[in-house]
């Protein structure tokens, strides 16, 4: 019974984390859309885009926040969907962990890559 209760409280905390990260994502997506317009002004080549975004600390900080919000939000949601769709397969947790790690590593790599221009 104790474990069931703890599980419930943990799920409530995850729900809260997902809700807060959704609020952050809402703002991030809006800013990102504006950022796209800024980044593609006057030329769509990688070099031209990097010329406007590279080396900007604010840019890097914003996108790392974006990555972290995705890292929290998406695995919780995927885990819930998988648990409800395939309740007996036990794939919800491993799939959520893999997705979380992928988002964090690939996302952060992309942020660092754009910030440093591949120097690191």
């Amino acid at each position, binding site marked *: 019974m104790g474990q069931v*209760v703890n599980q*419930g*409280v943990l*799920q*409530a905390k995850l729900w809260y984390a997902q809700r807060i990260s959704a609020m952050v994502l809402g703002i991030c997506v809006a800013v990102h859309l504006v950022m796209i317009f800024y980044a593609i002004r006057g030329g769509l080549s990688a070099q031209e885009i990097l010329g406007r975004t590279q080396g900007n600390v604010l840019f890097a900080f914003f996108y790392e926040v974006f990555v972290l919000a995705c890292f929290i939000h998406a695995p919780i949601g995927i885990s819930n969907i998988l648990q409800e769709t395939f309740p007996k397969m036990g794939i919800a947790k491993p799939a959520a962990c893999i997705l979380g790690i992928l988002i964090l590593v690939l996302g952060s790599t992309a942020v660092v890559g754009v910030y440093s221009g591949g120097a690191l």
Partner: protein
Amino acid sequence: MSNTDLKVKVWRGAEQGEFVEYLVPRNPNQTVLDVVTYIQRKLDPTLSYRFACRVGMCGSCAMTVNGVARWTCRTHVSQIVQGDALEIAPLNNLPVIKDLATDMREFFNKWKGAVGFFKGEKTRYDDFAKVQPDSEERQLANAGIECIGCGVCYASCEVVESRQNYLGPAALNRAWTLTNDVRDVQQLERMRAVAGDAGCHACHSQGSCTEACPKSIAPTASIAGLKKLVARAAVRGSKWGKL
């Protein structure tokens, strides 16, 4: 058969069974419960179904009529008849005992599981608790207090269908009304009981319960209230303590 007869298909059997068609005379102001009662009294006395008050108070007579869960005593045939056909089945998401009677034990056990019962600390020697009618808690409790326990919301809920251990809209609505009862002393225990994926956080907010509720209660809103309250209590604590 006259031109005004209703063709009524009624579920006969338990989990395994079939629809059997009966012809029932059409009357003005006839309810679905009248139709079922006519079949049992005039056509086939072995038909099993449940009812008590016939005026929408007791919550016994809910069935699936033309694919939708309804209280049959307050549902007029004229409101829902498709041509001259009615299809009457037991409620979804509950084991069928026989014909139209379902086993409601799990439904009510889940009310208990959600700590959906009152416990105060005052005795007969204490003064009455004074609850202001316009206080926020009283208003929130009022919104969900008229539940008659008919099981229509439970039978209409997609999450109940897919998650065996989900407490369901009626139990969670009851928990929410008690959460807003300032006299109750089981708040932490109740919040623990309704937290997580077997409780309020599994709700998809699809609103089928709210759409189907014959008493126009909005369990979806009650569950949303619980979600916020319980999650905050788990992370930041509540006026009753931390989970």
